[in-house]
């Protein structure tokens, strides 16, 4: 597997595009499920950047961070989906724009 000549900035480019797309998804979607998905996309983009940077320096740390990001994603999604269930129950909708009882 030697001689991987993919330029680092190309990978980072992909990752940043994923980041931006995820961010856009976060901003435009009103459905809480899609919002959580967007978060996953963004987490994934950060993971990609870490793995790429780790590879760039030839260190295992990037992959370790990636694994921890997986953990984080799992934990957050678990709680997040739990909340989704409660949202459906108490708000009768998944539209987050409706969850604006507190403001001002």
């Amino acid at each position: 597997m030697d001689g991987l000549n993919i330029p680092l900035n190309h990978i980072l480019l992909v990752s940043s595009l994923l980041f931006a797309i995820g961010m856009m998804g976060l901003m435009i979607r009103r459905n809480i499920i899609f919002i959580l998905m967007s978060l996953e996309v963004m987490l994934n983009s950060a993971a990609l950047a870490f793995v790429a940077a780790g590879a760039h320096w030839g260190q295992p740390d990037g992959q370790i961070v990636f694994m921890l990001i997986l953990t984080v994603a799992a934990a957050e999604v678990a709680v997040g989906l739990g909340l989704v269930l409660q949202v459906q129950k108490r708000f009768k909708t998944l539209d987050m724009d409706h969850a604006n009882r507190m403001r001002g």
Partner: protein
Amino acid sequence: MNAQLMMALMPILVLSLTAVVLMIQASVKRDQSVAWVITALGLLLALWGAGYARGFTQPVTVLLMVDDWGLFFTTLILVAALVTLILSKDTFSPEGERKEEYYLLLVLSVLGAVVLIQSSHMVSLLLGMELMGVALYAMIAFPEKGQRPLEAAIKYLVLSACASVILLYGFALIYAATGELSYAGIGLKASIAYAQNPILLMAGTAMVLAGIGFKLSVVPFHMWTPDVYEGAPTPVTGFLATVSKGAVFVALSRFFVEGQLYEYQSLMTALAAVAIASMLIGNWLALRQENIKRLLAYSSIAHFGYLLVVLIALSYSGAEAGLIRESITFYLAAYILTTLAAFAVVASIAGEDERKNHIASFDGLFWRRPIQAFSLTVAMLSFAGIPLTAGFIGKFYIISVGIQSQLWWLITALVIGSAIGIYYYLRIIFAMTMSSGMSSGMSVNDEGEDQKNVAQDVVVSSQDVLAMLLLTMVLLLGTWPQPFIEFAGRL
């Protein structure tokens, strides 16, 4: 891993153990008072552990740095957690049953905060922050009824996760630039990396700051604060305001100092902009807020703006580094104690009834619950930075540091912000002095009612004791700070 390391990790170990014991207890027999006792014991033990670990300060692997400074904040956070625990028992009981998970989450969240405080590495920062956060999401959404807690939790989760991703991405860029993940490593390599490619490093750092800024709720990442403060159960709000923010700020300072980020002009400019905006906008937002929890949320925005001044001062050689560290220590300690005092009162007066969070429901508190009212008054004065309170000495530190570093713009913003702040802190105090139907101090004689209220208050409740304790600490730090200053200087 040798024994020394284990000793140094004592608070973390104790907390983890407490979590495990709680799990076991819940699986054997669900009994929330037992769980409460176990949690309390665990936290107390961890407090002891924090003291014990002082003898063994050292870096523990690359991830954690156990030093006196961190242990002091660990202690502080454990105290805050204990206060939260006491408040949770008295005022927060969803449906009156099944709070075992809540206690477990509390312990886990504290654990996350401790990790965060002692973190010296990006990974421990991430894990600590997330552990604290994930547990908090569930704590916020813990009540089984009502939309507000849920709304608060989901907002906090989504926004916080978004901030975490930004932080992660920032670290990824820093990692790409330096090849280091530990603060010290970043500090070592940063100047070389900066010389090669300043943009990558600066962008990464800026993103990290944005992510941490979110947790500290500084402008422009502050929007979530009032909603989450309002929606969360009051003890949880208190926890969020003290433990979470305090730990994150400590982590930020570590990252800042050890990563030597104060050397970069553009970063300091950005941070100064954030600080100024926080001081002003936080106070402006609080100006006419009627809900006391939202008001405290806005005021916390301003307070972290004040604190950022100290970090910015790092980059100027005017102030001594020791003084800066002392300032952070003192201000954070004062802020945490004051906030706890405030939330202790809010929790015991307003409870979970959202209508009672309105300032108007504090009307005449002086005559109904004098101890609580006095405590809240002192807390407000401390927030406002009036002498004899801890908050004043804190502000004294910040202004001193700012002056020595000649940060005139920041000091101007601080002065303006504080001046605005006086207004809304005073509004609360004023509300407490009012009495219903008393249009003038002399015209209406409503003593009868007052006498009755006074009579009720002869019995001093546990909430009053708690309020008195916190009050004493705030006043003690304000009137006789010397021992604490010496102590902080040695950290």
